[in-house]
């Protein structure tokens, strides 16, 4: 039995990961399906990390997409405004940086075409051979993740005393404020026009002897897949560790957990921080993949989509939430196909959201643990009921002869 459960716990995810690694052999030829796969991984990261926060820790936060956006915007601002030069420009804001100069460019204004960049002026005066370097987007990833984590820490600390509805309202408020700030700071963020983000591999990349251009789907597929797998590994470690045990205890009963020695504040803030960093990482990679980031990713519908994915998969299981995200994303795409019954043509591009809403309502009403989570539970806990009965029978059988020999068998009836 142990072997079987180990096989299920490790073997099944490993086999799935391997399948995803070799999947481009079949789907690599279709940019459309590759795009869906990349987007599916992105949503799977968001849904799985949100399930840790909402399902395991019981913190029903609407700020998850905000952390994603904070990560993406931090990376976009970094990519837009940070340069390294080998000599001082004298015209830009700059600080010494490991023997070079870290330059912070001026706000780009409403339209990039109208910008008067201080670096353009500096170029004319800088000595020959001096370089202006656009720093690597991978440092931007780190910057975005740290920024997401800091905001996660802040929000986690601010909502410590808030529960259920109040937590939801607070986090919706935060999300809307963030959207308003990004939209309002047009000079810096270009508002609704969005900030452009460099491709993940601006100069293309060579993988396994193949050269891929900046717009090819295979490299971003592997980057997002790698991020997805790393985050799933971290999440599965977290849920099986003491952190997972404590956050579930906190979800069940905060006061009782504290009375048993659990540092409630630490674990609540920790889970906010960890999940915010994960969302931020997904946001950075998705932003670089899509090439632009706009405040529209913060509309409530986007957050609702992530919640629906986790709820339909199963809120209290990170794997179920991730699978729910993939199924929902591909399902919504499949539902785009309109069909005709006799004289009536159903335009599914509009009706698909109705179908999606119905699935969500049916899940909430009849499958509180989602559609995938009960299946996983059925496999993982299939022996529990049998073991309980067997152990109880064994205990009864062991107790009966003792009672007879003690001669007090009937006394406690």
């Amino acid at each position: 039995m142990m072997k079987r459960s180990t096989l299920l716990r490790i073997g099944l995810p490993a086999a799935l990961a391997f399948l995803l690694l070799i999947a481009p052999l079949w789907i690599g030829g279709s940019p459309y399906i590759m795009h869906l796969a990349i987007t599916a991984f992105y949503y799977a990261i968001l849904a799985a990390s949100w399930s840790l926060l909402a399902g395991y820790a019981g913190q029903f936060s609407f700020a998850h997409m905000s952390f994603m956006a904070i990560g993406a915007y931090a990376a976009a601002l970094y990519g837009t405004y940070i340069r390294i030069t080998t000599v001082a420009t004298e015209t830009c804001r700059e600080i010494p940086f490991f023997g070079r100069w870290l330059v912070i460019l001026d706000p780009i204004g409403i339209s990039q075409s109208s910008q008067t960049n201080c670096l353009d002026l500096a170029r004319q005066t800088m000595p020959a051979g001096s370089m202006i370097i656009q720093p690597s987007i991978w440092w931007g990833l780190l910057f975005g993740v740290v920024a997401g984590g800091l905001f996660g820490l802040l929000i986690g600390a601010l909502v410590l005393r808030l529960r259920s509805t109040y937590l939801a309202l607070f986090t919706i408020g935060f999300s809307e404020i963030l959207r308003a700030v990004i939209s309002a700071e047009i000079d810096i963020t270009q508002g609704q026009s969005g900030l452009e983000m460099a491709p993940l591999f601006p100069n293309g990349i060579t993988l396994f002897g193949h050269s891929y251009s900046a717009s090819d789907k295979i490299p971003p597929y592997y980057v997002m897949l790698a991020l997805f797998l790393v985050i799933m590994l971290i999440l599965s470690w977290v849920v099986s560790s003491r952190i997972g045990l404590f956050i579930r205890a906190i979800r069940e009963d905060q006061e009782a957990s504290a009375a048993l020695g659990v540092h409630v504040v630490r674990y609540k803030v920790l889970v906010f921080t960890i999940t915010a960093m994960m969302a931020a990482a997904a946001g950075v990679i998705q932003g670089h993949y899509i090439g632009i980031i706009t405040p529209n990713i913060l509309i409530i519908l986007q957050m609702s989509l992530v919640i629906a994915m986790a709820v339909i998969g199963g809120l209290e299981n990170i794997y179920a939430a991730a699978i729910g995200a993939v199924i929902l994303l591909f399902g919504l795409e499949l539902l785009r196909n309109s069909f005709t019954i006799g004289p009536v043509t159903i335009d599914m591009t509009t009706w698909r959201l109705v179908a999606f809403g119905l699935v969500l309502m049916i899940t909430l009403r009849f499958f509180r643990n989602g559609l995938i989570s009960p299946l996983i539970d059925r496999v993982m806990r299939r022996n529990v009921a049998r073991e309980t009965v067997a152990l109880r029978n064994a205990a009864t059988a062991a107790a009966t002869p003792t009672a007879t020999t003690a001669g007090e068998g009937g006394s406690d009836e």
Partner: protein
Amino acid sequence: MSKQGDMQQELALDVNHLFKNFGGLQVLSDVNFKIRGPELIGLIGPNGAGKTTLTNILDGALKPSGGTVYLNGKRIDTLPPYLVARAGLGRTFQVTRAFRRMTVMENLLVPAMALHATASRREFEEKAREVLDFLTMSHLTNEYGRALSGGQQKLLELGRLLMLDPRIVILDEPFAGVHPRLMEIIYEWIYRVNDEGKAIILISHDMETIFTLSKRLLVLNYGDLIADGDPDVVKDDPLVKAAYLGEDEPAPASPAGPESAKFALPTRQPGQDDSADDEEGRVNA
């Protein structure tokens, strides 16, 4: 078990001039008592007497409006509940608080792992199995808390305390709504924990169990500690009679010493147990 050595060191709880008010309502007023060593103490009082408030202050969930609490020389009234628990004070709740969507084993692992920062799950699983054996709940190891009966959930809470291994335990109504057979286990639990050198404060409206088990009785009445002493003496105290026990009939005293009570478990009359949630009915029955 790791604290067994320390346990030999005399346990000392000092409650000094404790006050608590909620707005204009004085819930505790100058409450003073000391506990030395593995005492078995009953805490009684009418509803609204301040028993639960006192418990919540001792456990760190509430801060007192005035006064101090020291556990073995360490001030605990300023600490948050998790540090009070780690300092060695454990409690159960009046309404059972099992973690319903966690397995019985996980319920038991929470306090053990919270107490030992670097320990792994496996180290405590063996101890948890022993605890479940003692509670006759081994067969339920992998079941969810929500699958247990109310009585079993009470036992599970007591099991969690065994895993926490505190020096002093506050049991808030451990017998309420529990089947007599499970009550036997709770009695055994109390004697076992007491024999291990831990002090127990037992809050109950069931006078029979209070007088059977306690060797010292504290009586709270609307925030005042009106009596503290030997149960046989306290029960005749006119103040206590007037406030809680009633004037007409004496409360049932323990017919024999606590030693015999270990084996002579509640010999309740059919229909008497669980029949009356009304404390007056029980006390004067």
